[in-house]
């Protein structure tokens, strides 16, 4: 069997074509695939659709995020649960590209976003949910009453690629996430044709992980790269260090 372990991030993203649909895992810092995002920016594929919880914050110094691909002219559309900052007075790096019409966006409630990818990964084409019924997001869309309650039809969201970050992995691609690093990563891995993982610890031999402790089966994982130590590899930094 061909190895799933790649020697560099550049190699792991080398074949990503223009127009690909890519899920970017992570919620705040944990699980965010900074190194894969940086490699994709360097690769330069264009016309991308990027799916993530947010487009990235306004923190300085900036970390690689969806907005950094937008700034580089690589993104056609964003699908996220935030297309504006939580504080209306804050301006995200993404905002000016969205307001000028350079990039399209689809705003999706967070649980619906996760479930649309889980459904895609589970072979389910669509589902009904009570979320967003009666809101602007449901205008003109199909609803149906189940057990006396109006529900909104939502479609599965399949991905061409998923970028995720895990704590541990074995050579078969079985993944273990640590604490809130898990977030969207398992559902994005399931929804994607090709899941690419940046792994924090050394990739273990096949069989080294406790089978009962695996969060994502290697069935859903195609490529892995070990994150090198900083500064070559990108790691989350503490808040007070970020300000320096």
């Amino acid at each position: 069997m061909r190895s799933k372990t790649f020697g560099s991030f550049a190699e792991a993203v080398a074949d990503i074509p223009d127009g690909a649909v890519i899920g970017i895992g992570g919620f705040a810092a944990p699980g965010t695939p900074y190194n894969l995002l940086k490699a994709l920016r360097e690769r330069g594929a264009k016309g991308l659709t990027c799916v993530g919880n947010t487009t990235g914050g306004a923190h300085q110094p900036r970390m690689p995020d969806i907005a950094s691909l937008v700034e580089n002219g690589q993104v056609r559309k964003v699908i996220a649960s935030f297309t504006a900052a939580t504080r209306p007075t804050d301006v995200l790096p993404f905002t000016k590209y969205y307001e000028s019409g350079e990039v399209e966006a689809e705003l999706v409630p967070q649980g619906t976003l996760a479930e649309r990818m889980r459904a895609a990964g589970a072979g389910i084409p669509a589902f009904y949910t009570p979320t967003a019924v009666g809101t602007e997001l449901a205008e003109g869309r199909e609803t149906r009453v189940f057990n006396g309650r109006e529900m909104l039809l939502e479609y599965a969201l399949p991905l061409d690629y998923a970028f995720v970050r895990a704590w541990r992995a074995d050579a078969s691609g079985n993944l273990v996430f640590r604490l809130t690093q898990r977030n969207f990563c398992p559902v994005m891995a399931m929804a994607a044709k090709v899941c690419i993982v940046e792994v924090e610890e050394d990739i273990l031999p096949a069989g080294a992980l406790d089978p009962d402790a695996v969060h994502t089966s290697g069935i859903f994982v195609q490529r892995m790269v070990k994150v090198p130590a900083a500064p070559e590899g990108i790691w989350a930094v503490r808040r007070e260090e970020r300000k320096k």
Partner: protein
Amino acid sequence: MSENTSGPIHASAPSGAPATGRGWDRQQMADRLSEKFQDGWLVNLGVGIPTLCSNTDIGDREITYHSENGLIGYGPVLPAGQEDLHLVNAGGQNVSLKPDSVTVNHADSFAIIRSGRIDVTVMGAYEVAANGDFANWKVAGQKGGGIGGAMDLAACAKRVFIILEHVTRKGAPRLVPSCALPVTARGVVTLVATNYGLFAPTGTGFRVVELAPGMSFEEVRAATGAPLEG
């Protein structure tokens, strides 16, 4: 604070706030809602003022806090230098674990929400209407918005409590007959804490549950956009 949050933050007290010594401060608003949490409840707190609910002394009641990013049961934010960078709450803050904390993936976290297992969600808002609608994801004239987990929580939690300043910085009421801004969910709010008191939407207006110290019924009625019921 991360942008990964549910509901707006109101950064400073509005100009219409009552003079010192009258009304409630933010912690007191949060305390009034926390008093309603019952033993054994699973509680989701939005960012901003709602997070202050976790500071309230809840005595011997056992409350579990759920964070939308798949964290069930968490403790206080850790001081600088002691953070675990793999562990954040919905606001991106580095919180602490409790002995019975667990993490799940996002689909499971929202399965907990969507299946009605959250006893109460406490959120900030721009407006609450007399019929229980509320708006907290988009301001007037804004392109896009910040929904996060707010719509899932509002549609599916057993109860929705709202915490907000009674009037805007310009003095306009936030408790209104109907929402002018795009709503987050319809007919779901049962209890509202403001700096002026505690109120329950009735369908046609707001019933006063409790007035904050120094606030008169007449004064609060003048600052409320919908009929105030005693």
